[in-house]
């Protein structure tokens, strides 16, 4: 057992939820609640098992750790190879944390097909964790698709009124992107066979392949499209508001908290590693789309009347910031963007959770149906305020550190004007979030039915409190987190720039150019 956990920790982390999902089937329909508790216990156990990833992870080491290698389909060169590095470690931990929190929240809120819900959630965790630690493109693709199916059902079965439409839209969008990526993966494997004579889907084998510049662009765009849809980057974002709005609260938390990050993660892990030249060439466009996302998402969020939709559009805005930081490609901006991914998971996760608290009581998401509830539900209000201030980047909480580093890094890059535009996000985010706070929690209490609202129960309070603790931790001691991610990011940045320059790209990224002639 000890050896299993030492040498195959990642495998255990990935498949424990899947095994748990299978065991959920053993519960009879009459024991639905026990099944819920069991699923929760499995996810908590998984979180406990993931703690060594925090304690034993060596932040100074830029490469993969907790590595596992096994042959899977040798004839096609597909291997079962896993590992975490600074890019993935925090996201893995975020996933193992948010899953039990979401299940805990659902304990008292999901009533329909409870066993199936628990199974879907555990399988989702398997898919997400697998995508995050896979070092083989075929393996990654498998997990990437595994992730899609439970989410489709979570939205489609346990969602709101327009859930079928939303689930369909989510599925079609994501699928459209991933199919192109799948073709590109196959092309790469075939290219590897053409060059070396062997099949391989391993990331490190495919990374150094000689590919003609034009072809590289096409492959890069295929990958980028898949990830851009997932993030989502303007103008591919319209699935997100629908999916978020219709998804059950727990689904929204996971969707916002982790699933969206997979897009950015995939871009960093695969886009940059496989196609450094193209990634550098297109970086300005990536950043520009990010900026549009920041401003556009914020403005559209302001126009919303539905709380959940507002928070969903705010995600578009926040992830626009992350994307901009990646486009700017300075070390500070990359650190900030990476940290901001975690921050967004915490703050937006918390916001969805708290909106869920209100929704489960009143069954409406319309802001107009609330107003003045601060006096009725003070604890919910307090948590909502903290999450709001985290979301709008108030110093002392997590959002500020990520935002500040991203802005500063972007300012420091050749794309200074991006920062000038993007910093307006701090005004816009205050506008839409405080409007939400005012309309829902403040103002006179006009709706009689709100007087009967009850405040948070323990199963809602605990997840919210855990998230708030993390917000404060990152805000006050960001170095604990930055130290884990920075070496990997810096190594990735160096390699990308070096390989771009070595490749003799016609139009190197200005950052790369600046690095060579300081």
């Amino acid at each position, binding site marked *: 057992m000890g050896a299993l956990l030492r040498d195959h920790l990642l495998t255990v982390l990935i498949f424990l939820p899947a095994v748990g999902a299978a065991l959920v089937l053993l519960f009879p329909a009459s024991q639905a609640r026990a099944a819920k508790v069991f699923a929760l216990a499995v996810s908590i156990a998984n979180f406990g098992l993931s703690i060594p990833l925090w304690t034993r992870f060596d932040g100074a080491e830029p490469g993969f750790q907790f590595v596992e290698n096994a042959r899977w389909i040798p004839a096609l060169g597909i291997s079962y190879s896993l590992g975490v590095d600074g890019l993935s470690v925090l996201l893995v931990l975020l996933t193992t944390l948010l899953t039990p929190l979401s299940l805990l929240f659902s304990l008292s809120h999901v009533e329909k097909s409870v066993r199936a819900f628990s199974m879907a959630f555990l399988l989702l965790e398997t898919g997400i964790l697998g995508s995050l630690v896979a070092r083989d493109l075929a393996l990654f693709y498998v997990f990437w698709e595994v992730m899609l199916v439970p989410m489709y059902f979570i939205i489609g079965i346990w969602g709101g009124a327009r859930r079928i439409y939303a689930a369909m839209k989510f599925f079609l969008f994501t699928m459209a992107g991933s199919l192109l990526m799948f073709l590109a993966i196959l092309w790469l494997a075939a290219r590897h066979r053409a060059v070396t004579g062997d099949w391989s889907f391993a990331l490190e084998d495919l990374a150094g392949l000689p590919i003609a510049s034009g072809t590289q662009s096409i492959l890069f765009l295929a990958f980028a499209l898949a990830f851009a849809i997932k993030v989502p980057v303007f*103008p591919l974002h*319209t699935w997100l*508001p629908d999916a978020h709005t219709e998804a059950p609260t727990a689904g929204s938390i996971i969707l916002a908290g982790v699933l969206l990050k997979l897009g950015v993660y995939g871009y960093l892990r695969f886009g940059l590693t496989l196609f450094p030249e193209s990634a550098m060439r297109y970086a300005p466009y990536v950043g520009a789309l990010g900026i549009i996302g920041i401003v*556009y998402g914020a*403005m*559209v969020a*302001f*126009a*919303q009347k539905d709380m959940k939709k507002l928070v969903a559009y705010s995600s578009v805005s926040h992830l626009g910031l992350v994307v901009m930081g990646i486009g700017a490609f*300075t*070390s*500070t901006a990359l*650190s900030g963007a990476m940290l901001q991914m975690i921050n967004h998971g915490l703050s937006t996760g918390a916001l969805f959770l708290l909106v869920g608290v209100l929704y489960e009581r009143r069954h409406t998401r319309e802001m107009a149906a609330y107003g*003045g509830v*601060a*006096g009725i539900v*003070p604890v919910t209000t*307090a948590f909502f*305020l903290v999450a709001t*201030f985290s979301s709008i980047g*108030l*110093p*002392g909480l997590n959002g*500020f*550190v990520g935002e*500040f*580093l991203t*802005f*500063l*890094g972007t*300012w*420091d890059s050749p794309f200074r004007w991006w*920062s*000038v535009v993007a*910093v*307006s996000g*701090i*005004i816009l985010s*205050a*506008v839409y979030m*405080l*409007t939400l*706070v*005012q309309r829902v*929690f*403040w*103002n*006179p*209490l006009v709706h009689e039915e709100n007087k009967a609202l009850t405040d948070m129960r323990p199963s809602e309070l605990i997840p919210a409190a855990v998230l708030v603790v993390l917000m404060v931790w990152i805000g*006050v001691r*960001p*170095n604990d987190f*930055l130290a884990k991610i*920075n070496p990997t990011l*810096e190594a990735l940045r160096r390699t990308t720039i070096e390989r771009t320059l070595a490749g003799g790209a016609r139009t190197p990224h200005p950052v790369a150019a600046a690095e060579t002639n300081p």
Partner: protein
Amino acid sequence: MSLWWILALPFAGFLANILLGPRLGKRFVSVVATGTVAAATLIAFSRLIPFVSGTRETVIESIGSWISTDRLSVDLALRLDPLSALMLSFVTFVGFLIHVYSVGYMHHDETDAGYARYFAYLNLFLAAMLVLILGDNFLLMFVGWEGVGLCSYLLIGYYYDREYAAAAGRKAFVVNRIGDYGFLLGLFGIFTLFGGFSYDAVFSAAAADPGRYAPALGLVCLLLFVGAVGKSAQFPLYVWLPDAMAGPTPVSALIHAATMVTAGVYMVARCNVLFRLATDAMMVVAIIGGFTAIFAAVIALAQNDIKKVLAYSTVSQLGYMFLACGAGAFVAGMFHVTTHAFFKACLFLGSGSVIHAMGGEQDIRKMGGLKSKLAITYPTFLIATLALAGIPPLAGFFSKDAILAAAFAWHPEKAAWIAKLLWAAGLLTAGLTAFYMMRLVSLTFHGAFRGTHEQEHHVHESPRSMTVPLIVLAFLSIVAGFFGLPVVFGEHANWVEGFLSPILLPLAGLAAEPHHLSHAVEWALIALSVAVAAGGLWLGWTWYAKQGGAVPARIAARYPAAYALVAERFRVDELYDALIVRPFVALSRILWKVVDVLIIDGVLNAGAFLVELLGDLLRFLQTGNVRNYALGILLGLVALMFYVVSGF
């Protein structure tokens, strides 16, 4: 004890009050809130007294790194130097007084939860303000900067179930964020120029090599100043401050008069090295300050809400402070910050006492004759009024005189006439200030009572916890000025000048050029400003206390349009609403309904529609008749055979 305790204590008070306060009741909250602040004040003074009497060496206390990446390293470090010492002294002390006052003011009209919330926010505010003034780098200053903004937001919206209060809180935060936009970009500029955020590193580098940094600093200073314009409520971002009066009155005294709003002045004074290198930016600071001073003073002439008058007065006085900084008289600006903290806090607390006595009434037209009933509030209010008006030897006289003298002595290289114009504006503002304050005093305390019978019966002096702070602040309004005597009383008469001079780092290659005025001119200026102030007071007294407002009413009747314009605050809010808010709302709706729903989803739906259309056409092949399908198979087979045989 470490400087960190000074801000840790109020923060601990915040945590205790927000978490336990609602359950443990008002007594617990009062004790914790005032106790932590009192302890913080004591620690602050236990550090200040040795500092002032000693060598006044800058002390930096670091507790480690906050953010570090390979390009950026920011420490959690606090700094005690003359500038932060000055701020520390009055922030802690006035903060403490206002906590005491609040115990009386908030006691009987709130639930336990509301009471706990109020004091928790007030404690948090003090902690944030202390971070702002004690922080040793720009980033910590920004932490405090945003922290006080947060508390301001929460406290303005303290009466959250009143829509105007909730809206005012939001407005304050958003307008401040507009300023922060500039401030952040200014910080980025500093990072680009100096590679770090630590004060010592930035200022010594700039002072050592002005020629290298001066060209880029113009823009950086302007951006920083945008932040100050937001936080310190200067034109054109002052609009949030009058609305901020929706908060409880002690909050208006502490945050929106004495401490937070002066953060912008503190920041500019802190960055004096940078600003002195950017003469064009200095000119902008002075112009904005001078214009705001007179603009807000004019508005204050025609306001009838006691707190609104004081709010516009605050905006106007903050303008004074920026005028001083712009003219290079950072010490005079900071001196006015300090004296203003005392008398304006006293005025606001006094107005709170009046409102308290009147059962919540704020309209001065419905007051009058309160002089005899409020035996402590009235004299303290009067003293603070005279101090604000600039009557010697009260505190306001010395600080205001220092600013006017500095503005008069200021000879910018370009457009020296603007300097003189600003001086004239400052002088005129002094007269207007004296006038509207005397109008306020006359309408509130003199004449006949104009409220309801019920109110008249209810009027009473406030409890001790409220009157004692008034007395202390009134006393300080009298004596604080003697720390900054004008130069005519001797070369070293101005203690503040000597105390703060270390923060004015000498700039390499640029000789300090103090435009000392001759004693005769100084005396003349003093006489002039006293005359203007006295004139304003006399006019206010005659028109309102003695004649009952007949003359101003006639003037208002003769020029109704002009009067309405002033009374309606030049309709700036309405202008912003039409120019910014409504277009923004419209644009965001358009982006959503047109771009998102119509265009993007429209394109997608069009794609889906095409697929559906194709399916609609092709489905006619499905006749449902098995034999048709068999015929299809046959035809396919024939075609295939034809293909194979003919060898296409």
